C-alpha cells in the first residue's frame, strides 16, 4: 500500500537553497530597456499589435494570442515602443527570435481597463477568459498557457486541483519565498482556479524541507474548508506533475494522456498567485519572482523582476559576479538551459538565474558506460536510460523508443547519477528531435504521395475528357459529312 504513494527513483541532489532564503523577496526597479519576446510560452508566438514609436501604459496588451494554442503579452511598464526586433534567445541553440523593445519613461502609469470587473460573481468561463487576457502561463517552467488548462479542465470532470509547491530543483527558492510571504494570495488564486474548473478540493504539495512555507500556507488555509496542505518527502523530481500526482493521489497519468484524464489538474503556486493578481488587481502577468544564486554571484537572493529585464542589469542589481561563472543558467541546475550570454531577457518561464562555478557543476570527461544500472534505479518513470542511450548513439531511434523514450520527462536524474558522466539527457533530446523529424518527414511523404496521385488522376481525367471531346467532335464531323453526302444523293 505504501508503494502507491511513494515516488520511484529520483535523486537526492544537495539542495544549496539556504543561500537565497535568508533575505525577503526584493522588488526591483525599472531597467533602462525592456525586450519582451513574442514566443515565451508553449505554442504559437503572440502577434504584436503595437507599432514603432507608440506609447504604451503599464499592463497594456502589446501582443495578442495567435491561434488557439498561444498566450498574450503585456507591457511591463509605461514607455515608448522602440520596435519589434531580433534578440538572442535564452536557448543553447544561440538562435535569436522576435521581441518587442520598450524604452520605459519611468512614470509607471497603469493602464486602466474600460469595464472593470467585479471579482465576486465571476462565472467559470469569465475567469478562464480573464486568465487568457492576462497572458498567464505555467510559471513552473513548462510555460503552458494556463487558460487552455482551465478550459480543458472545466470540460472534463476534474475533482482535485493540486498546487505544486514542491520546488524540488536545487538552488530554487522562488516558490518557497512566495509561499512564505504571499500565502493568502496564492490560496485565493487557487480558489479562483478551483471555480474555473468546478473542482471540489485543493491539495497543496510542499516538500518537507520548507517548514516556514508549510506553516504559512497552513495558516492561510485555515479560512478555507476545501484546502489541504500535504507535506511530501523531499526528492528530485517531486516537482514533475506526474510524480506529484502519484505521491498525492496514488494514481498515475496514463501514458500519452493528460492529468485531467484522471480528474486532477496541477498548477504551480506562482501561477495561482498570478491568477489572483489578474482577477483581483486587474494586473496581467508582467513580473515574476526569480531566484538568483550560485557561488559566482555576489549576493544570492530572490527578486520580483519585470518580464523582459535583461539578465545583465539584473546581475548588476545583485552586486554583480564574484568570478566569471563556468556556466550561466536560466532555470534550475537539473533542467535549466545554459545561457549564451547575459544579454538575454527574463522570460515568463525563468524561475532562476544561476551563476555556477566548476566545483558546483562537478563535470568530468565522459568514459564508456559500464551498465551499472544506477540510471535505471534513478529514473522516476521506470525506463532504461542505458539502453535508450545505446540505441540513440547507434542512430536507432525506434529501438530507443521501444525502451520508453517517448515517456522520458528529461528530468536529468539518470545523468546526475551516471558514474561515467555520459550526457544521457543530451542523447535523449537528440533522439527525440530526430524521431520527431523522421515522423514529420514520413507524414510529408504520405501527403506528397496523395498530392501526386490526385494530380495524376486529374491529368487522366483531363486527357479522357479531351479524348472524349475530340471523339465527339470527330463523330459530329463524320455525321455532318454523312448528312451532307445524303443531301447530295437526295
Amino acid at each position, binding site marked *: 500500500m505504501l508503494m502507491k504513494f511513494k515516488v520511484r527513483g529520483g535523486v537526492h541532489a544537495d539542495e544549496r537553497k539556504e543561500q537565497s532564503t535568508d533575505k525577503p523577496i526584493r522588488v526591483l526597479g525599472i531597467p533602462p530597456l525592456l525586450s519582451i519576446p513574442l514566443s515565451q510560452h508553449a505554442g504559437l508566438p503572440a502577434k504584436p499589435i503595437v507599432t514603432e514609436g507608440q506609447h504604451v501604459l503599464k499592463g497594456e496588451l502589446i501582443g495578442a494570442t495567435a491561434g488557439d494554442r498561444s498566450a498574450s503579452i503585456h507591457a511591463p511598464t509605461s514607455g515608448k515602443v522602440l520596435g519589434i526586433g531580433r534578440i538572442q534567445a535564452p536557448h543553447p541553440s544561440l538562435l535569436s527570435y522576435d521581441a518587442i523593445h520598450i524604452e520605459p519613461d519611468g512614470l509607471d502609469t497603469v493602464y486602466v481597463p474600460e469595464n472593470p470587473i467585479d471579482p465576486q460573481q465571476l462565472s467559470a468561463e469569465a475567469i478562464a477568459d480573464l486568465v487568457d487576457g492576462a497572458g498567464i502561463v505555467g510559471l513552473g517552467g513548462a510555460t503552458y498557457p494556463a487558460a487552455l488548462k482551465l478550459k480543458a479542465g472545466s470540460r472534463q470532470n476534474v475533482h482535485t486541483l493540486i498546487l505544486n509547491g514542491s520546488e524540488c530543483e536545487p538552488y530554487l527558492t522562488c516558490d518557497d519565498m512566495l509561499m512564505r510571504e504571499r500565502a493568502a494570495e496564492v490560496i485565493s488564486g487557487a480558489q479562483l482556479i478551483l471555480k474555473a474548473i468546478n473542482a471540489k478540493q485543493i491539495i497543496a504539495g510542499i516538500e518537507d524541507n520548507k517548514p516556514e512555507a508549510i506553516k504559512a500556507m497552513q495558516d492561510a488555509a485555515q479560512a478555507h474548508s476545501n484546502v489541504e496542505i500535504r507535506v511530501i518527502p523531499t526528492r528530485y523530481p517531486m516537482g514533475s506533475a506526474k510524480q506529484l500526482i502519484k505521491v498525492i493521489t496514488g494514481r498515475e497519468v496514463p501514458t500519452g494522456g493528460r492529468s485531467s484524464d484522471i480528474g486532477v489538474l496541477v498548477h504551480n503556486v506562482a501561477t495561482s498567485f498570478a491568477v489572483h493578481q489578474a482577477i483581483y488587481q486587474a494586473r496581467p502577468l508582467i513580473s515574476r519572482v526569480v531566484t538568483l544564486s550560485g557561488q559566482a554571484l555576489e549576493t544570492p537572493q530572490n527578486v520580483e523582476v519585470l518580464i523582459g529585464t535583461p539578465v545583465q542589469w539584473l546581475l548588476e542589481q545583485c552586486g554583480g559576479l564574484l568570478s566569471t561563472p563556468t556556466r550561466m543558467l536560466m532555470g534550475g541546475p537539473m533542467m535549466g538551459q545554459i545561457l549564451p550570454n547575459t544579454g538575454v531577457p527574463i522570460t515568463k518561464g525563468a524561475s532562476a538565474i544561476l551563476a555556477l562555478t566548476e566545483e558546483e557543476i562537478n563535470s568530468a570527461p565522459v568514459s564508456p558506460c559500464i551498465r551499472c544500472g544506477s540510471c535505471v534505479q534513478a529514473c522516476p518513470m521506470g525506463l532504461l536510460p542505458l539502453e535508450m542511450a545505446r540505441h540513440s548513439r547507434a542512430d536507432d531511434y525506434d529501438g530507443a523508443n521501444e525502451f520508453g523514450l517517448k515517456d522520458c520527462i528529461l528530468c536529468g536524474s539518470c545523468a546526475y547519477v551516471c558514474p561515467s558522466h555520459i550526457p544521457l539527457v*543530451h542523447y535523449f533530446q537528440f533522439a527525440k528531435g530526430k524521431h520527431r523529424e523522421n515522423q514529420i*518527414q514520413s507524414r510529408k511523404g504520405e501527403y506528397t504521395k496523395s498530392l501526386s496521385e490526385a494530380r495524376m488522376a486529374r491529368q487522366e481525367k483531363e486527357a479522357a475528357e479531351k479524348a472524349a471531346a475530340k471523339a465527339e467532335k470527330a463523330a459530329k464531323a463524320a455525321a455532318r459529312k454523312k448528312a451532307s453526302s445524303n443531301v447530295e444523293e437526295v
Partner: protein
Amino acid sequence: MFLTIAVLTSLGLMLGFILGYADKIFAVEEDPLIKDVESMLPGTHCGQCGFTGCGSAAEAMVNGEADVTCCPPGGQVLAKSLADKLGVSADLSNLTSVPLTASVEESLCTGCCRCFRVCPTDAIVGANKQLHYVFKDACTGCGKCVTACPENCIALHQEEETLDNWHWPKPAVV
C-alpha cells in the same frame, strides 16, 4: 535390387502425396512484395532514382538490382523501412537527411507558368503573368521545376533554422 527400388519409390510416392495434399491446404497467393514496396515509395515518379517510375524502382529493389537508398525524396526514413522490409542492410551515409525545398526568387519570376506544369505534387501556385510561389509543405525537392524555369529563378534551399525546427546535435562520441 528390385526391393530397394520398390521401397524407395513407394516411400517417395507416399511423401509426394502428403506434400501434394498439404500444398492444397496451405495454398497462399504470391505475396505482393513488389506492390508493398511500391506503396511505400513516395509515388511522385520523379525519376531521381534513375527509373522511369516508382513501380519499376520497386521491382528493381525487390529483385536486388537497385539499392534501397536510391530514392532521395524518401530520405533516410524510407531507406530504413525498405531495408527492414526486404531484410537487406542499408548504409544511410550518402542520403542527406536534410530536406531541400524549392523557392521562387520574386524579382526574376515572369509568370511563364512552365514550372507548375511539371511539378509532380502541384506544389507551385501561379497564373499567367502572375508571381509564382512554392508551398514548402508540398515540395519534395525533386528539382524538375529548377530545370523547367527559363529565368532560373527557382532554386533548392535548405529549410531556414528557427527555434521550432532546431534539434539537439548528437553528443561527441567518446
